[in-house]
């Protein structure tokens, strides 16, 4: 049923008026002691009961009057859907079992499997069914056919598949699930019934309630039946974070709905060294642990760090957390400069140490730099292109053409030039220096470029001197000033590329180095120009690892159990690998082994379930009619919606008449009761 003017439904609140008046009138009379009720009983009680019933009926009529009025104004429509499943029509059942991490708590999964068995047992003869698990991914485990001679065998496929259902390590977002269900239901015309068996963790709710409603499908009615396991909120401790600090390691243990307790955390380093620490974790709070581990404690290469706590709750999966600490020497990046002790060296060193530790600045004087060493580096930095000699320029051009990269800036030596070396860019005519108190400001930023996609804060940068460069056809202006002059340009040269900053890289012509954006910009530039596709070493269970990182067909991934994840065929076809387990994945690329730590999503550790109201609301809203487009196509045969307000008005008139009659009778009787003379005269 729909309402054309649902705001008028607020008028339903007016039913409180007759109820209030009723309460006023039916105040209980004061009790008076009387010697004997022997002569009072029977008839008088009957009279009063009749009168009370009459008044209750009167009140009900008055409530109905207000309710009908509000409903009539809200103009309800009754849509008779021709696509509604007829009784006895065959249906497709999707039996979805939540296999997220929280389902590993206590006996939740066993009860979920039992509930699924009950659903399977109740399937109609002509129904089809699919058993689906929803955790870190949505997977169809088994499918049963409609009733045939082989029905038992078909159904047994479902029950057999149920035996293998276990709680996973991932997180389940119910909004993502609802969207996935629509995809899973797919084609067909029979109604779909989605049975969702879950502990209904509150943390799984999407930010918008509407995301819980499956998307409408053409020609198919979807009905979502929720099967909550009716879980109470269980206390749970979990390792909330594990991170590397300059001093060692920091560990956080969070208690969800827990009392204050002493919790011992153990740190394992490469499976050998163990350090323990016990602290009190406050009630329903966070306990923080700091382990002092000097750099020498870490082995060269990737280190496996495991933080675990004593399992004192029903969910053990989140009692461990994994961390990969790479310990490799930083790659030197040549900085071609006229002054190796310039402030720029300090700026760049700090930026690399903060955000790109795999690199370190290696200042080289332009006067003494040996161009033959360029081949050792994948990219180089030049602080003033105008200071580069023609010989070095030639060497650099050759280096870039073959695949090297250059991150260049300009300086005092560039000001007098008409054409910049290496890039060959022409310097346009115009004043490079901004007017006093009116610096050049950033105007346009190409945030689609990988260099700038993750950086923010350029608009706060003010430039006092900017070399006006002419932009060639192949150049891509990444940042332009308000007057249109380019600040950051990318140019491809042969196999390599140049990123050109039209101002200084230190703070002599601008204040870029003192802005936070400088650090992230340098880090992104390093990643971009080095050509390294970085592999995030910390992943959440359920995330996908792009196989391009592993080196494509020549790579392999080994899960925490030591099993290879990719078959030979997968290495050619699959685009990514789903990280289903917690622990350390080993990613093998030619000549290199990389570790990836996979941990549970911390939100799964909060075992507080959704409220009964939330579940009920979801349940009520989860019958999805076919798409409007389809309904419109069928409107030629489907009956038009019925406007109910006419019937409501007729009913309203009847109620008013009945109320008038009954009210009059009640009033007459009431006045008779209050008339004392009538009684006296007769006695």
């Amino acid at each position, binding site marked *: 049923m729909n309402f054309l003017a649902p705001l008028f439904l607020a008028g339903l609140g007016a039913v409180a008026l007759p109820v209030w008046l009723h309460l006023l009138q039916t105040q209980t009379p004061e009790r008076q002691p009387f010697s004997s009720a022997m*002569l009072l009983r029977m008839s008088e009680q009957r*009279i009063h009961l009749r009168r009370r019933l009459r008044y209750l009926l009167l009140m009900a009529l008055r409530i109905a009057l207000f309710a009908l009025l509000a409903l009539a104004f809200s103009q309800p429509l009754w849509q008779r859907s021709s696509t509604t499943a007829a009784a006895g029509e065959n249906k497709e059942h999707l039996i979805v079992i939540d296999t997220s991490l929280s389902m590993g708590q206590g006996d939740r999964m066993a009860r979920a499997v039992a509930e699924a068995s009950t659903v399977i047992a109740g399937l109609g003869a002509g129904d089809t069914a699919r058993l689906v698990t929803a955790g870190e991914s949505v997977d169809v485990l088994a499918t049963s056919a409609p009733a045939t001679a082989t029905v038992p065998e078909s159904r047994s496929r479902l029950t057999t598949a149920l035996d293998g259902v276990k709680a996973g390590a991932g997180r389940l977002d119910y909004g993502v699930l609802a969207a996935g269900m629509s995809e899973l239901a797919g084609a067909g015309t029979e109604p779909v019934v989605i049975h969702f068996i879950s502990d209904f963790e509150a943390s799984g709710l999407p930010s918008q309630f509407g995301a819980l409603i499956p998307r409408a499908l053409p020609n198919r009615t979807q009905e979502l039946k929720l099967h909550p396991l009716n879980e109470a909120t269980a206390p749970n401790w979990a390792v909330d974070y594990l991170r590397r600090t300059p001093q060692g390691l920091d560990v956080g243990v969070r208690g969800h709905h827990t009392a204050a307790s002493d919790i011992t955390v153990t740190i394992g380093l490469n499976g050998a060294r163990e350090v323990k620490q016990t602290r009190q974790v406050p009630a329903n709070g966070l306990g923080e642990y700091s382990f002092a581990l000097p750099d020498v404690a870490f082995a060269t290469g990737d280190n496996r760090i495991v933080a675990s706590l004593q399992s004192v709750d029903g969910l053990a999966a989140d009692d461990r957390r994994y961390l990969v600490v790479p310990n490799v020497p930083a790659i030197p990046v040549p900085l071609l400069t006229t002054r190796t002790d310039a402030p720029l060296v300090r700026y760049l060193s700090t930026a690399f140490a903060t955000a790109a530790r795999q690199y370190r600045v290696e200042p080289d004087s332009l006067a003494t730099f040996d161009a033959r060493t360029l081949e050792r580096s994948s990219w180089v930095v030049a602080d003033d292109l105008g200071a580069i000699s023609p010989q070095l320029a030639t060497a650099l051009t050759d280096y870039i053409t073959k695949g090297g990269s250059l991150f260049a800036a300009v300086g005092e030596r560039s000001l007098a030039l008409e054409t910049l070396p290496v890039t060959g860019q022409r310097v346009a005519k115009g004043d490079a220096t901004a007017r006093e108190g009116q610096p050049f400001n950033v105007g346009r930023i190409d945030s689609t470029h990988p260099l700038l996609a993750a950086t923010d804060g350029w608009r706060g940068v003010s430039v006092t001197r900017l070399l006006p460069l002419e932009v060639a056809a192949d150049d891509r202006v990444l940042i332009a000033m308000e007057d249109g002059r380019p600040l950051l340009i990318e140019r491809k040269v042969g196999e390599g590329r140049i990123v050109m900053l039209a101002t200084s890289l230190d703070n002599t012509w601008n204040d870029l180095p003192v802005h936070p954006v400088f650090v992230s910009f340098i880090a992104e530039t390093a990643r971009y120009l080095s050509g390294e596709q970085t592999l995030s070493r910390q992943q959440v269970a359920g995330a996908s690892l792009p196989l391009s990182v592993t080196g494509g067909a020549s790579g392999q991934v080994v899960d925490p159990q030591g099993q290879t994840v990719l078959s030979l065929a997968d290495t050619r076809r699959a685009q990514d690998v789903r990280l289903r387990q917690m622990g350390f994945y080993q990613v093998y690329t030619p000549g290199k082994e990389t570790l990836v730590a996979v941990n549970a999503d911390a939100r799964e550790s909060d075992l507080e379930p959704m409220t009964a109201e939330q579940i009920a609301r979801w349940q009520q809203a989860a019958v999805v009619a076919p798409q409007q487009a389809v309904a419109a196509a069928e409107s030629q045969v489907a009956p038009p919606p019925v406007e109910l307000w006419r019937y409501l008005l007729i009913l309203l008139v009847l109620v008013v008449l009945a109320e008038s009659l009954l009210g009059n009778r009640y009033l007459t009787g009431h006045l008779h009761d209050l008339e004392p003379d009538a009684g006296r005269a007769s006695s």
Partner: protein
Amino acid sequence: MSTPLPSQREGVRLLQPEVLAGLANLELIARAAVEGSLIGLHRSPLFGFSQEFAEYRSYTEGDDPRFIDWNVYARSDRTYIKRFLGETNSHLMLLIDSSASMGYGTTPVTKLRYAQILAASLAYIASRQHDAVGMMVFDEEVRSYRPPSGRNKLHGLLHTIDAITSSRKTDMEKPFSRFREHIAKRGMVAVISDFYCDPKALIEGVKPLAFQGQDVILFQILDPRELRPDLSEAAVLEDMETGQTVEVSPAFMQKDYPERIKAHIRSLQEAAAGIGADHVLLETTVSLDVPLRNYLLFRQRRR
């Protein structure tokens, strides 16, 4: 009709229940009630009818000439009357209802207090007439019992009457059954109650007494508001014995209820008459001389 003398008016005023109830001592109350009620009666009730000589006294106007000793007159030409010591020639049993409903009262005198005063007065008057007086207090059980005894036990009897309090439900059958077991001698039985019971059940209890030769008088005490309720708005009335509540309207209490109580009284009267018992309806505002005179007339009639 002649105007009553000041002393008579004072006596009548003294017999008003609310005045009597103001006296603390029940014996004093009984004495006041009895003395007040006997003012104006020509025949002295002080002496009984035994044959044991007590004294001679000069005949005075008003004395019964039957008691003039004519032998003395013959010898001394003076009229003397012979006086005899009174002795118990009958007994009076007071059956007092102490159920919770007797505690009801809309005047300063509750029904129970009126019953106490009436019982004390009857005991006092019977004692003066040398009748043995006993009593039984009952509700649904027999709460206290004193067998008939002479004048020297009056003080204790009055004390027992004074100590009666209203408490539980009424059940006539069991107390009357117990009473029949204790009393064999013929006498008078005064039942003082509001008689909120089935008249048939009451008569079933009283009938064996009548057959036993007891002279039964039923004093039914009611509050004026029980006979003429005054209710201006609907009220919830709570039965003082059962706790049951009934919501009543003013119309019912002013029209139907008085008819019901009248019918109830009428059926009690008819039932009492059927077994030869007297029924006296008393409101708690009625002067005490009415029931006492009723009693004396009843006694005289039975003699």
